[in-house]
């Protein structure tokens, strides 16, 4: 069998856009989405008449308040797009699935310029109330079917609970400590101070971290990301458009989409990790780049422990050693050997749900990072999103592969 044709390499990110990001902005999800989309289209040197594809994660009607964002039909109609391809959905290799689908659509000639967006209004939706878990609403909640029947009766109502198991298991197998885990949150906060759009920009110390209230041991408040309102959009174009973009296009070098273990939060074969293991392996099988080539890493931090696992599974540090790797924080700082979550991640910049990581990778590769720009600019960025049985990753480069 001949090696697979790497069709994702026929795709580039030609434009990026992001709406205002904040807490309780009081604007509709569609309003924020249109802002992000129009910015991305203009950034790509296009007009809406050029857009012939549209994709989103996860599509309407999914999850708790403010999670889903507007449906792709709503956005199509708001912008009166004439599409040759469209897509939206929850199932697949994590939040980036919509971007992966767009890459393959342009490679297949189904569309030339695909607008891809992810919008959250979780901060507004939650208002003054606390953050609910999945199905954790109390009165009037119907009985549970499917996967949730196995967890919710026990009050395991949030991914925080399910991922706390991974952190605890890592403490047992690898000797992970809370002080090591803290470095993900402290690093994010330090970087957020240089990101004007970040939700939390005040300095945070180790003492602050250790004094924070527990959510679900060993994860405390600062191990959990910050709900926000905001929309991120990118334009995925065919690579032959790259020479014509007003700003540098970012080339898709490889995508990682595999899941080999059982697709379950509690039955996965190795509870020190999750399907990041498989997604990362499948990505490295599609490229000649090596983990040592990665110069900036934007690794999903819906919970701090996820970033630790991504670091290892992407081969950016040895397996089981992400704790010592991040200790002291110097290695992952903006001026360190592997700058990590340079905009403040979801922990401090806000839970833009994977697309914030993608956006920041593009910012850094273009050298647009301003106060938080890492040296170079970097030549290779690793972007990873997701946790549990939904995980995907990709490598982006400013030049063609």
């Amino acid at each position, binding site marked *: 069998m001949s090696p697979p044709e790497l069709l994702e390499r026929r795709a580039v990110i030609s434009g990026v856009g992001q709406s205002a990001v904040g807490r309780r902005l009081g604007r509709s999800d569609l309003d924020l989405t249109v802002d992000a989309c129009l910015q991305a289209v203009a950034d790509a040197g296009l007009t809406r008449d050029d857009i012939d594809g549209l994709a989103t994660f996860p599509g309407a009607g999914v999850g708790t308040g403010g999670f889903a964002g507007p449906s792709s039909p709503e956005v199509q109609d708001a912008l009166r797009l004439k599409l040759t391809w469209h897509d939206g959905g929850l199932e697949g290799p994590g939040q980036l699935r919509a971007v992966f689908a767009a890459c393959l659509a342009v490679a297949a000639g189904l569309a030339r310029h695909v607008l891809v967006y992810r919008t959250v209004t979780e901060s507004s939706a939650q208002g003054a109330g606390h953050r609910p878990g999945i199905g*954790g609403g109390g009165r009037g909640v119907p*009985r549970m079917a499917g996967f949730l029947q196995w967890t919710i009766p026990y009050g395991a109502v*949030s991914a925080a609970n399910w991922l706390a*198991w991974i952190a605890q*298991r890592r403490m047992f197998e690898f000797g992970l400590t809370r002080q090591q885990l803290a470095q993900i949150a402290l690093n994010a906060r330090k970087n957020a101070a240089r990101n004007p759009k970040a939700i939390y920009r005040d300095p945070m110390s180790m003492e602050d971290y250790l004094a924070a209230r527990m959510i679900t041991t060993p994860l405390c408040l600062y191990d959990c990301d910050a709900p926000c309102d905001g929309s991120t959009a990118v334009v995925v174009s065919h690579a032959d458009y790259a020479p014509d973009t007003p700003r540098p296009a970012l080339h898709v070098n490889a995508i990682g989409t595999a899941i080999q273990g059982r697709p379950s939060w509690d039955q996965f074969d190795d509870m020190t990790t999750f399907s990041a293991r498989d997604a990362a392996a499948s990505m490295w099988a599609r490229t000649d780049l090596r983990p040592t080539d990665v110069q900036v890493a934007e690794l999903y931090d819906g919970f701090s422990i996820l970033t630790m696992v991504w670091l290892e599974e992407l081969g950016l540090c040895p397996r089981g050693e992400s704790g010592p790797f991040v200790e002291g924080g110097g290695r992952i700082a903006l001026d360190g050997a592997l700058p990590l979550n340079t905009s403040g991640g979801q922990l401090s910049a806000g839970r833009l749900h994977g697309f914030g990581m993608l956006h920041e990778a593009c910012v850094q590769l273009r050298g647009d990072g301003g106060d938080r720009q890492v040296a170079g600019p970097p030549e290779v960025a690793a972007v990873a999103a997701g946790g549990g049985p939904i995980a995907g990753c990709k490598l982006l480069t400013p030049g063609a592969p």
Partner: protein
Amino acid sequence: MSGPDLARGPSIRVLPRLDATNSFFWTSGQDGRLRFLRCGACHRLVHPPAPRCSYCLHDALAPDVVSGHATLHSFTVNHQQWIPGSDPYVIGLVTIAEQDDVRLTTNVVDCDADHLRVGMALEVVFEQAEDVWLPLFRPRPEAR
């Protein structure tokens, strides 16, 4: 009795919806015993319940009693009031004694937070709620 510092679970038990596939599991505790589907061909346990054996794809699956013994694979003490009025409780992930790739999410009860250890030996104890018998786990006598 739970440990002095922990509740047995959330303040409100949101229950599973019983159907033809899962009823045997959720009502198994009626006689104090835990059951899983076992394959008549390869004899492995299949969980969650599936129409065929997920290992050998044989279709002869039937509920079978297991010892109720398990090992604590991981755990978390939940403090967040996802469900209002809940005191801290332990969410355990346990591996059943008969087959190391079959796990249950559960509450670990009758155990202080300080005594929780990955690898500790547990046994099932059921809590009835309406028509459901939830399998919870407590330390086995030698682990108490």
